[in-house]
């Protein structure tokens, strides 16, 4: 399939272009609107996301549907895989916008920049999901990173936010620098930036013994550092708890879901398309490396989550753990594995965002992010409390909620490849995880609290949004469409 030229590509590129346009529009609108408290910009960006969504569907079903298209001389690729992630990311962004609308910690005077940045970061993630060339990969990665640094530190006059930003950028810069270094070596060895070529060349070179496996190993490890930092996998996870805790809650939610998903998109493309060949894997047994990393990641994430008192931080660690679960699917080089990852990402989107939304609500009403703040919620705001229970239990992976089905797919895939130990580690981890999720539930339901605490009331809008997350969390597992992702993944695996 011949890559399209730049001009031809533009048409297929309409979603990204739309994003750019709307980002600009948001800034402009922000300039014209006098009333600082107005939420016009927010709605404009929502409209924008809507349009982009439409565009994504159109471009996909009109062009990318039949067989993958390669754009801009093979810089980006339009295929089911990228489309899937685009939709996923759009959902996440939209949710984040809605959160931000309800969140009270954000500074109303900076709305314009805020939403513009959100759109920009979405653009970057789109690219991450679809780029097939080292250059694009690096650029998209940096775009996402830079914007998220800013968003993390978006709360002016809030030391925690600034600290988060500072740590994030320092960490991110070093990580991406390291990755870039690795990329440079890949480029050097393959003599090309295109993942496909890299795969082929490296295979040949290794076969002919012109490059030492060590070089490849180093390169891969460096790349892993960059990717691992995006998906917060041990030992590149340490930024995430601090950043998640410091950043504004909507951004935390966004990072924990969207940027993780984008990271996985990149990861899958990179490793499956780039290092998928058997010779490569003989030279460098990176699946095994990933297996170890994933085991470590979930274990560390879960164990560290146990003693947390701050719910945001607790969820940060839990999302690290989930990164570990997801990585299991990446270990396998099987359509089922990728399919499982995609399924889990969808589920994770809903349950994790839902949980964070509840955190937002409680932070607004109770003004606390601590577990004690959740005391007696069962009677003060029963619906919210029960919703939270559903999210948490689903995160813990207990039937009949979607989280269970996701985990089940992952474990099936893992066992199918014969990684029994990994599956066992994962399962025991999910038992451990139940314990800290249960601590929140306990605070909400089991512990007694001061009776005179007033009951909290929420607007219908709130409940509507909440149900947007609750219903999928309950239903996804029972719907067949969601089990067809393994077909998507086939596209990215060179086999």
């Amino acid at each position: 399939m011949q890559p399209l030229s730049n001009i031809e590509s533009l048409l297929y590129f309409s979603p990204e272009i739309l994003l750019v346009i709307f980002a600009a529009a948001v800034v402009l609108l922000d300039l014209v609107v006098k009333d600082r408290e107005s939420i016009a910009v927010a709605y404009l960006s929502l409209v924008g996301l809507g349009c982009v969504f439409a565009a994504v569907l159109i471009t996909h079903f009109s062009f990318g549907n039949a067989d993958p298209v390669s754009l801009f001389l093979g810089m980006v690729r339009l295929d089911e895989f990228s489309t899937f992630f685009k939709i996923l990311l759009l959902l996440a962004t939209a949710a984040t916008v809605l959160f931000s609308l309800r969140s009270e910690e954000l500074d109303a005077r900076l709305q314009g920049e805020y939403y513009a940045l959100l759109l920009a970061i979405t653009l970057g993630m789109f690219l991450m999901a679809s780029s097939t060339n080292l250059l694009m990969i690096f650029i998209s990665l940096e775009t996402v990173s830079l914007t998220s640094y800013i968003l993390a530190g978006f709360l002016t006059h809030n030391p925690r936010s600034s600290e988060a930003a500072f740590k994030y950028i320092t960490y991110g810069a070093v990580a991406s620098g390291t990755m870039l270094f690795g990329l440079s070596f890949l480029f050097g060895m393959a003599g090309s930036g295109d993942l496909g070529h890299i795969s082929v060349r490296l295979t040949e070179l290794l076969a002919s013994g012109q490059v030492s496996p060590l070089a490849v190993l180093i390169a891969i490890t460096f790349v892993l550092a960059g990717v691992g930092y995006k998906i917060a996998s041990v030992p590149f996870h340490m930024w995430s708890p601090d950043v998640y805790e410091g950043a504004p809650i909507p951004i935390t939610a966004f990072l924990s879901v969207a940027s993780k998903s984008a990271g996985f998109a990149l990861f899958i493309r990179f490793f499956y398309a780039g290092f998928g060949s058997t010779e490569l894997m003989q030279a460098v047994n990176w699946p095994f490396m990933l297996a170890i990393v994933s085991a470590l990641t979930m274990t560390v994430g879960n164990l560290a989550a146990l003693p947390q008192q701050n719910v945001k931080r607790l969820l940060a660690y839990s999302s690290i753990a989930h990164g570990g679960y997801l990585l299991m699917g990446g270990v396998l080089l099987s359509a089922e594995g990728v399919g499982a990852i995609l399924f889990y990402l969808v589920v994770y989107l809903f349950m994790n965002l839902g949980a964070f939304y509840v955190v937002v609500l409680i932070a607004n009403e109770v003004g606390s992010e601590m577990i004690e703040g959740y005391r007696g919620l069962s009677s003060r705001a029963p619906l919210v409390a029960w919703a939270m229970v559903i999210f948490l239990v689903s995160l813990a992976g207990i039937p009949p909620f979607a989280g269970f089905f996701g985990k089940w797919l992952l474990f099936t895939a893992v066992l199918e490849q014969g990684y029994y130990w990994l599956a066992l580690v994962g399962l025991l981890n999910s038992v451990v995880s139940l314990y800290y999720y249960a601590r929140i539930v306990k605070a909400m339901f089991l512990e007694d609290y001061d009776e005179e605490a007033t009951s909290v009331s929420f607007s219908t809008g709130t409940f509507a949004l909440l149900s947007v997350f609750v219903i999928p969390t309950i239903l996804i597992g029972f719907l067949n469409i969601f089990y067809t992702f393994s077909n998507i993944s086939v596209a990215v695996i060179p086999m």
Partner: protein
Amino acid sequence: MLLSLMIFVPLVGMIVVLLLPRESEELVKRVTLLFTLIPLALAVALFISYDRSTAGTQYVVNVPWIQAFNIQYHIGIDGLSVTLLLLTALLGPICVIASWRNIEKGIKAYMALFLLLETGMLGFFAALDLFLFYVFFELTLLPMYFLIGIWGGPRREYAAIKFFLYTLFGSVLMLVAMIAVYLNSNVVNGVADGLRTFDIPTLITLAATQGHALADQHFQIWVFVGFFIGFAVKVPIFPFHTWLPDAHVEAPTAISVILAGILLKMGTYGLVRVNMAMFPQGLHHFTNGDGFLGNSLALLGFINIVYGSFCALAQTDFKKLVAYSSIGHMGFVILGLAARNSEGITGAILQMFNHGVISAMLFLLVGVLYDRAHHREINGFGGLGSKMPVFTGITTLAFMASLGLPGLSGFVGEALSLLGAYEKFKMLTILSTIGIVVGAAYFLWTLQRVFLGNLNPKYEALPEINGREILTLAPLGILTIVLGVWPNFAINMFSESVTNLINVLQAI
């Protein structure tokens, strides 16, 4: 259809209850009662219309669910499940009535959770697809956690989470085994072809076919162990039992009833439905009577019996005593199953049902006492016999049934299990009979300490058991007597299924 209706009516009930206003508590209770009575009616209908002459599953519903993994919504009943379904459906309304007065806070949430729990239990006993089976199995965890954790006693949080984690741990191993079975379900002579399946009947036949991966002995042994641990936690079998006393002591009466009456049976039911029927070679490996492993299952049964009984003997908390007695009685089930002959298995199944009824009675009785005296310290009572004769009478009945007095249902199950087990495990069975004596000892001792002797002046004014409580106890009591006098009434429900099972076991 009838079956699906029965399973999901409580779920509908839950939704209805949730929609009701929180203030109108009476209404909530009534609605819940209604929605538990419907399944009971259906269960009775099933019980009557069930064709006793065939072993095959009946009222089968089999519609695809998750095609990608060939998972079906496959339910149906055979003699074993219909019996337990009846038990479940029976205990439902009884528990609702039992909770009528003594649940103070959040009656609405309580009833909703209870209904959810009932759906889970009913579904579990009807499921014929391994995946569905597992989903229902886990579905019971959450409501149970809340029911113990919110409405329980002082150490409820601890007990609840302990129960939750313990069971989850078990079921996680079960999950691995389950997936392993699924993955191997299409492998014949090392080559995989065709669809994989979770369908229990299919799997059973596959596991019996020569050269199939499921029929491989080593595989069977490992998978057997996986499932066994999963169910052993629920039963509970000796090393995994420590959650039970805590859970029972903290749980409110009705929940203890469900816990002892149904949830424990889920474990043993699973053993029969999956471990025995699906992995006969695995079973054989642990019950063939030679060596330590060959006796291990029977040994576990024996340990449960003796250990549970002696622990019960040492208790001074009435509820804890009953809890430990449950452990003892489940031991007879294990022993009977280990025997692998018709007497043993029939006895075991009967014992499941009877223990469900009897332990339910016992916990209800403890509840009655607790509601009046607000403590459960056995030595804190005395001489109640003269104060509340009817209560004493019913308690005596329950105790006698539980210690296996012939003419009451407890005896038949125990006797058959032992008769069956003796054929294979002479020494262990003989030792197990110690349990019979000790059982009598702790029950009679309790009877004496609570009801006999001079009336403890503290309880001069203790009111006699009231009509509502009698209403909850009477059906169980009658069932106890009926099954004691005419056990075939239950046995011929599942005798065919048992014969079927025996054939499977003998096939290897």
